[in-house]
C-alpha cells in the first residue's frame, strides 16, 4: 500500500460511524465490532482506504457502524462484492462481513471461489449457527438435531465446519475468534490484515435471541480453559486451566489430547504449532477439532494473490504488446483504406 502522506494516529472512536447500533443488547456482534474498530486503529492505514462490505443478515449491518467506505450488499454476495472492490483497487483494505447463512448457505459459492483465487480480502464470518435477521431458522452450521423455527423437530443435516470447508477450498489463512475475547480478536485481525491472500476469520458469535448459549462452554469462566485452546505459530499447543494438557500426533498422524505428566508425556512432547506448513493435513485436524475448540490463527501460508498475479501479467503483456491505446487496437490486424 503506497502511502504518500503520513497516516494519522487513530483510536477506535475514529472508526465509529455515529449510527446507532441496532443489534440486540448482548449480541456478540457488538463485541466483535469493537474489536474491529480497535484493530483498524492500529493498522496504520488511512481511514479512506478501508472498504467494509457485507451481504444481508444481522451481522451484515456492520458496515453502517463503521466510519469507512462500505457497501451493505445483498444476501450471499458479500464475497463477490469484496472480490470486485479488491481487484478494482488493490490499494484498498477490503473487509468482508458475513454471517453463517450469508457466507455458507446462499453465498457458499463465492466464499469458496474467493478463497481459491486467494483474493486479498479479510473475511469475517460471524458464526452464530442461526439465521438471525429472518428470526431464527437453522443455518448450514447449526448442529444436527437443533430445534429452530424451520426445524421444529430438529435439523436432519450435518453442519459445515467453516474451517474444513475453507481449507478444502485452498485457504491460505484460517483463524478462529470468539466474540467475548476482544484481545484475542484484535490479535487475529491484525494478523489477518498482515496476511497477503484471503484471510478467513471465523468468529464464534452468540445470538442472544435465537441461539443463546451456543458457545457458553467456550466463554464461561469456569469451563473455557478446558474447552478451548489458543494456538500461536511456533508455540506449543498447551491448554487447560492448569496448562497441563496438550496436543500430540499419534502414530497414524492423528491429533490426540494428552496430559502432561501422565503416561510419561512431558511438555517437550507437545506439538509446536506450525501455521506455515503448506500441506494442510494438520490444519484440517485443528480446524475440525471439537474438543478442545481451537482458537487463534490455525493456518497462514503465503501464495501469490490474485491481484499480484494480475499485476504481474498486466506488466508482462504491456511490455510486449504493440497495442498501447485504442487507436492501435482499432487499426490492428487487417485494415484497408477507401480513398475518396
Amino acid at each position, binding site marked *: 500500500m503506497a502511502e504518500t502522506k503520513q497516516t494519522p494516529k487513530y483510536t477506535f472512536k475514529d472508526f465509529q*460511524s455515529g*449510527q446507532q447500533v441496532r443489534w440486540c443488547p448482548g449480541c456478540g456482534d457488538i463485541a466483535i465490532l469493537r474489536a474491529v474498530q480497535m484493530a483498524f486503529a492500529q493498522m496504520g492505514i*488511512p*481511514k*479512506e*482506504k478501508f*472498504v*467494509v*462490505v457485507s451481504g*444481508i443478515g444481522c451481522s451484515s449491518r456492520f*458496515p*453502517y457502524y*463503521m*466510519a*469507512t*467506505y*462500505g*457497501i*451493505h*450488499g*445483498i444476501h450471499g*454476495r458479500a*464475497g*463477490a*462484492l*469484496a*472480490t*470486485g*472492490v*479488491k*481487484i*478494482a*483497487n488493490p*490499494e*484498498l483494505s477490503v473487509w468482508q462481513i458475513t454471517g453463517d447463512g450469508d457466507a455458507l448457505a446462499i453465498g457458499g*459459492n*463465492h466464499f469458496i*471461489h474467493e478463497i481459491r483465487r486467494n483474493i486479498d480480502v479479510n473475511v469475517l464470518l460471524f458464526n452464530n449457527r442461526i439465521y438471525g435477521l429472518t428470526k431464527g431458522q437453522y443455518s448450514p452450521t447449526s448442529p444436527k438435531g437443533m430445534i429452530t423455527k424451520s426445524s421444529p423437530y430438529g435439523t436432519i443435516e450435518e453442519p459445515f465446519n467453516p474451517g474444513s470447508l475453507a481449507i478444502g477450498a485452498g485457504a491460505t489463512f484460517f483463524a478462529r475468534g470468539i466474540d467475548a475475547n476482544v484481545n484475542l480478536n484484535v490479535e487475529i485481525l491484525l494478523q489477518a490484515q498482515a496476511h497477503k491472500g484471503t484471510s478467513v476469520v471465523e468468529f464464534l458469535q452468540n445470538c442472544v435471541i435465537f441461539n443463546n448459549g451456543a458457545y457458553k462452554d467456550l466463554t464461561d469462566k469456569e469451563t473455557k480453559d478446558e474447552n478451548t485452546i489458543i494456538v500461536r505459530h511456533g508455540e506449543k499447543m498447551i491448554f487447560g486451566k492448569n496448562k497441563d494438557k496438550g496436543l500430540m500426533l499419534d502414530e497414524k498422524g492423528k491429533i490426540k489430547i494428552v496430559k502432561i505428566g501422565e503416561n510419561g508425556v512431558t511438555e517437550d512432547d507437545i506439538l509446536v504449532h506450525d501455521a506455515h506448513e503448506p500441506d494442510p493435513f494438520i490444519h484440517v485436524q485443528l480446524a475440525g477439532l471439537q474438543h478442545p475448540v481451537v482458537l487463534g490463527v490455525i493456518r497462514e501460508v503465503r501464495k501469490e494473490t490474485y491481484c499480484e498475479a*494480475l499485476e504481474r*501479467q*498486466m506488466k508482462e*503483456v*504491456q511490455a510486449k*504488446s504493440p*497495442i*498501447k*491505446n*485504442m*487507436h492501435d*487496437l*482499432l*487499426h490492428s*490486424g*487487417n*485494415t*484497408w*483504406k*477507401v*480513398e*475518396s
Partner: protein
Amino acid sequence: MGNNGKSIVEEKDHVVIKFAGDSGDGMQFTGIRFSETSAMMGNEVSTLPDYPAEIRAPKGTIGGVSGFQIHIGSDHIETPGDYADVLVAMNPAALKANLRWVKKGGTIIVDIDTFTPQNLKKAGFDENPLKDGLTREYQIIQAPITTLTKEATKDLNIDHKTALQARNMFALGIVYWLFHRDLQYTINFFKQKFKNKPELAELNKRVLEAGYNYAHNIELSRTYIIKRAKLEPGTYRYINGNTATAWGLLAAAEKTGLQLYLGSYPITPASEILQEIAARKDLGAIAFQAEDEIAGVVTSIGASFAGKLAATSTSGPGLALKSEAINLAVMLELPLVIIDVQRGGPSTGLPTKPEQADLLQALWGRNGESPVAVLAASTPSNCFRYAYMAAKIALEHMIPVILLTDGFLANGSRPWKIPSLDELPDIKPPIVKEGELEKYYPYERIPGTYVRRWAIAGTPGYEHVIGGLEKKQVTGEVSYDPENHEKMVIERENKLKEIQKDIPPLEVDGPDEGELLVVGWGGTYGHINTAVHELRKEGYTVSHAHFHYINPLPANTEQVLSKFKKILIAEMNRGQFFRYLRSEFPQFDYRKYTKVQGIPFTVSELKQAIKKNLED
C-alpha cells in the same frame, strides 16, 4: 486478377454466397477470407456464420453442417441476404441442409468426391440428387475437390490429413475465379498467419490456386463482377458484433480515463466479449471470469464502487440470474453496463440462435419498481457505438444500463469505417474529487438531473456506506419512512427519464408521415430497412423507424408515431416491443409481424407482411 477467357462476364449490384460443409471443414475460415477480400476490393459486405450447437457434430449429417453466408454488393448491403446466388457444398449433407436457401437458377459448387452412397445416406438423400432434376434448376459445378487437392499437394512434404484440411481453399479458389477476386489478400494472410509454419502457408496457397485454375480450365459459361460500393473514404476493418461491443467499452474507458472492469461468465453467444476484453491486458482492461453470472455482475458492482467503468456481459439465462443484483445497482445508483446478447429461449432454448425475446425481462424483470436504461444495437458494427453510449449513460447518469444485442449481431460481420476517438462524444461522470465538497451526501442529487455524485472508495473525506435497503433522500441513511420511500421511487424514475435529454430523437427513414410506419428495434434493422427500401423502389410508400433507445424512449416518439395511420412492429419474439409501445401510447393502430424461429427475418417475408398491412 485472372483472365476469365471466353465466359460471359455479368455485372451485378450484389450477390449472396454461402459456404457449407462439416463442422471440421473450415467453412467459417473460408467465408471470412472471401468476405475480407471482397471488402478490401471495395464492396459492402454483410456476413453471418451459422454453426451447430455441438462442438463437433457427427460428420456428414445435417446436424453437423456448418455454414457461412456472405452478402456483397455495391450499396445498401444491410443483411447477409435471404437466398444464396452461389452455394458451396463440401458434402451431400451441406447440400441437403441448404438447398432450400438457394435461388432458383443459382450456382452450386459441390465436391463430387464426397457424393458416395454412404454419405448420401447419412445426409438423408434416397438417391443422388445431382443425377436428378437438380441439374435443370441450378447451374451445378461438380468439382472433384478432394482428388484435386491431393493431387495439388502430393509433392509437398505434408501428411495426407493435413493436406486434405485445405480442401476448403480449393472451393474458395473456384469462387474467387467466379467473382474475379484477387488471390493476393488471402495469400498474404497465409504468410502472416503461418509465419512460423511456411509449409502450411505454401499448402494453402497451392490449393487455393489449384481451385482458381480449375475453375478457369473448366470454362464456366458465366462469371460475375460486383460493382464497387460508394464507401465513405477512410480506413476500414472487418468487425463482428461481439468484438465491436467489447471495443466500444474499451473506447469509453480510454475516453474517460477510467479502467475497464468486466465481470463475466462465459455463455454462448456472448463469451467472445469476455474473451476480447481478456485479451486487452495491454490496454489495462480487467476481465474477471467469475464463478457464475451473479458473481460476474456483483464483482462489477464492487468495482464500480471502487471507481472503475464496470460492465458485465451475458445472454438471456444469465440476465435472469443477474436480475437480483442489477437491482442492487439500481439502489446503489452506481454506473454499470449490462450486455445481453439475446439468444433463443426460454430456458436453454436455442443457445446458438438469435431472438429478441429478452426485451420485457430487460425492462421489468426485477422485483420492485426498478428503472434501468435499455439500449439496443442494430448492426454488428454499431454495437461499438451503443456499447460506448451505454457506458456514457451509465457513467453520467449513475444508473445501470442494459444493452441488448443478439446472436445475429454478435456473430455477424461488417466492414466498418474505423472511428477516431475524437469523434466520440465526451463522457463526464459526476466524480467528486478530494476537497471539492465540504460534506458529501451520497444521495444528494445534482439539480436538474437527479444524478447523485460519485465519491470513489479511497477518496479521503467522503467515507460513506450505501446499501440495498431504501434510503433517506439526500443523506442515504437507511429509512423505512413511507413518504420517503415513495419519493425515492419517483426520484429513481425521474433520473431515468432525464436521460431522454441526452439521446437523439427517433429518426424516420422515408416520408415522415403516411399510411404505414414499420417499426423495429435491435438486430432486425438490416432486414427491415432493406425491405422498406426495396418496396419504395417498387413504388410503395412506406417508412421505417428503428429504436436504439428503448428506456427511456426518444422524446419525439409519440409525435413520430402520430403521423402514421398504421404502425407495423416487426420483431423476433411474440410481440414484446408491440406490447411495450402499446402500453406507452395506446392511442395508435399497431400491428405486429413476429417470428420466433431462431433465424433472422427474410427480406422477402417482411416485404410481403408490409404489403399486406399497406393494403388492409
